[in-house]
């Protein structure tokens, strides 16, 4: 370890003790406040598992049914709690199976530490059994990674791993530990990391940029806010709400921003992006000042950049300097932590309301309601819609549930129609779009917040990508409510095939198994609903059941998600049908 780290001595572990590398790993995890980790054992990580056995009263290891599930569970844990999720696996295939979850955590800024076993250091590079260059493989999808070959490196590297994962813009860190380093004994002493000299987690707030932002906002006639996950990651929900309310600005959210202010808040004007709401998408190209807060102008948000908010002055509140001007040119960039930046902005703002501007959003909402929402929520034709399932869940959970979704049509419908009363309630794979994310992520979310209702909503496609995690739910008795919206299609791809490929449904139709029987095979109570009149009671039964529950809802086969911005189109050319 040649990296210079700034250490903070942990007074509780001042004295050194002679222990093995693997015991040191457990002690590091405990010192970092880890109480749960998700993983799968194997040859190269066995010494650590032996210590997990000894420490099982202090740290709970959850055996997932696949290493990918371990990462998604760790992500769900992190996303609902804000704490660092931890996943552990063996070398070779165990390690490579983590990659999808790591990539997902990287693009969605989720704090996660992954620990992998590695072949003994004298075997490195020799194509040993279950050897893989996981540091090389994981480099482009980790915030930081490191290989440990000597036990004495463990405390400093582990401290640094947790510090990097959770600080600044969070992200995944992978630590690879050779088997000999796990066995080796050394004098253990733990010091928490409080800084790395080459790394500035939070840029220093420049007051003049805040003043410039305030000036633009105060002078605006048609301002609009788009906020992202940065608000929740920065624990800035209170400051954000105060800014929105004082300035009276209509505020829209990206998929990962959902819930930072409640869905029902009068200034919450809905979701932007490909399947977002009509008004905020259309009026992005009408506003005079666009205020982006903790978001990164993903292409699914902006549509065609050449026609995105060209008329507007753009203000970007952002923690990561690399995001400034990456996709959208800003007029004022406010670098820093959302909480601090928004707190500095608040006193500079003038109290305002924009009745005419707000009316525009209301008028466009009325159009979206007539064309789309009414038919989604109150269908008159036969065949259940996904949206009415969400409506029923809203009614029965009062919007207090954490909704964990997979990827596809059901995800867009869930984000559009779920009521999010609380922050950190929409747990979904945003940037990477990882099918199979939902079910294991729900396990982690439920274990991190057992007091909350956690509802996993998946489609029949994504559900089957990680369906084996039903075994984890059963073994852990995790009280996850599992809803599968079954349309017997890979629905989103089918929708694209219908709209852009002349209905050539290439490999999107699914012949599905008996999902209820599978759930029951894992001793999970289960029910299947096919009729509208049975939905209410079925959701009630699910909510009122202690412990896990599976509900399959057969929905219309060829339902589409609208509004929709076709790829390459402008946000204001969003289609309603």
């Amino acid at each position, binding site marked *: 370890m040649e990296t210079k780290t700034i250490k903070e001595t942990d007074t509780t572990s001042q004295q050194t003790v002679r222990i093995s590398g693997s015991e040191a790993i457990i002690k590091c995890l405990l010192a970092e406040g880890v109480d749960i980790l998700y993983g799968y054992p194997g040859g190269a990580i066995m010494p650590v598992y032996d210590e997990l056995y000894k420490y099982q009263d202090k740290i709970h290891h959850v055996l997932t049914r696949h290493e990918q599930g371990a990462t998604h569970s760790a992500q769900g844990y992190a996303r609902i709690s804000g704490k660092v999720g931890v996943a552990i696996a063996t070398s070779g295939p165990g390690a490579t199976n983590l990659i999808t979850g790591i990539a997902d955590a990287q693009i969605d800024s989720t704090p996660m530490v992954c620990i992998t076993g590695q072949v003994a250091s004298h075997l490195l590079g020799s194509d040993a059994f279950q050897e893989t260059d996981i540091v090389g493989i994981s480099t482009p999808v980790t915030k930081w990674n490191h290989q440990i070959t000597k036990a004495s490196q463990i405390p400093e590297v582990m401290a640094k791993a947790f510090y990097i994962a959770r600080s600044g813009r969070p992200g995944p860190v992978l630590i690879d530990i050779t088997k000999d380093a796990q066995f080796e004994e050394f004098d253990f002493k733990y010091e928490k990391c409080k800084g790395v000299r080459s790394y500035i987690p939070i840029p220093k707030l420049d007051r003049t940029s805040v003043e410039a932002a305030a000036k633009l906002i105060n002078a605006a006639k048609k301002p609009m806010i788009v906020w992202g996950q940065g608000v929740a990651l920065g624990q800035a929900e209170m400051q954000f709400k105060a800014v929105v309310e004082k300035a009276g600005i209509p505020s829209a959210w990206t998929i990962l921003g959902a819930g930072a202010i409640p869905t029902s808040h009068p200034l919450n004007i809905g979701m932007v992006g490909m399947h977002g709401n009509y008004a905020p998408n259309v009026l992005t190209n009408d506003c005079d000042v666009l205020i982006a807060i903790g978001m990164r102008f993903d292409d699914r948000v902006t549509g065609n950049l050449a026609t995105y908010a060209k008329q507007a002055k753009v203000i970007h509140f952002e923690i990561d300097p*690399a995001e400034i001007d990456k996709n959208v040119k800003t007029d004022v960039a406010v670098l820093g932590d959302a909480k601090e930046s928004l707190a500095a902005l608040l006193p500079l703002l003038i109290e305002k309301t924009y009745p005419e501007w707000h009316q525009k959003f209301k008028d466009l909402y009325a159009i979206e309601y007539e064309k789309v929402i009414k038919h989604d929520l109150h269908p008159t034709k036969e065949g259940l819609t996904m949206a009415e399932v969400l409506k029923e869940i809203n009614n029965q959970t009062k919007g207090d549930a954490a909704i964990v979704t997979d990827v596809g049509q059901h995800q867009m419908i869930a984000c559009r129609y779920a009521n999010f009363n609380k922050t950190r309630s929409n747990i979904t794979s945003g940037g990477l779009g990882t099918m199979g994310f939902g079910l294991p992520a729900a396990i982690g979310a439920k274990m991190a917040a057992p007091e909350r209702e956690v509802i996993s909503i998946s489609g029949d496609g994504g559900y089957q990508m990680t369906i084996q995690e039903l075994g984890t739910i059963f073994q852990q008795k995790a009280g996850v409510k599992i809803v599968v919206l079954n349309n017997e299609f890979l629905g989103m791809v089918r929708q694209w095939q219908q709209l852009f490929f002349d209905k050539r449904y290439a490999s999107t139709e699914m012949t599905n198994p008996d999902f209820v029987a599978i759930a029951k095979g894992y001793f999970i109570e289960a029910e299947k609903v096919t009729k509208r009149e049975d939905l209410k009671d079925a959701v009630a039964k699910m909510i009122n059941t202690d412990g896990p529950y599976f509900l399959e809802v057969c929905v219309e086969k060829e339902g589409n998600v609208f509004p929709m911005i076709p790829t390459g189109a402008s946000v204001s050319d969003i289609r309603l049908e």
Partner: protein
Amino acid sequence: MNQNNLYTVSIYTENNIGLLNRISAIFQRRHINIESINSSVSEIENVTKWTMVVLLAEDQMKKIIGQIEKQVEVIKAYYHTEDETIYQESCIFKMKSDLLFDERQIQNIIKESNARIVTVNRDFFVIEKSGRKEEIELLYRELNVFGIMQFTRSGRIAVTKDEMKISTMLEAFQA
């Protein structure tokens, strides 16, 4: 803004295993070829300096610098145009010794190009030349007429005309 230029990228980093992979991956994912790359110690103890040459548009260059700088073990990254740096490359030619006596103009070429003979033995002699890429390419063309046994050119190394405030930055960290 969107036309391609040659940029010299200077990156100050910790001296850690795997960092080359991390930095080159940022170019790779945007499908950008690295024209030359050099890694060495820098003016600051325990700090490595990378010098890379890349051909791309300035707006893309800026974004890449941001993404390089965001890597945990990168201390600071800069990009400069040709005018803003003093740069050199070095090259080595291995040629048959007979040529020194049979082809007298070789000695003139060596003299005029400010190259130097590093070693001579019965079978071959070795010429070294430092300079700009064009000077090295010219020497290559001139010598190639006589037959070159081996040729190698180094990556660019460069210093900037303006000050890089890296030392003061690091001092601030340590304080």
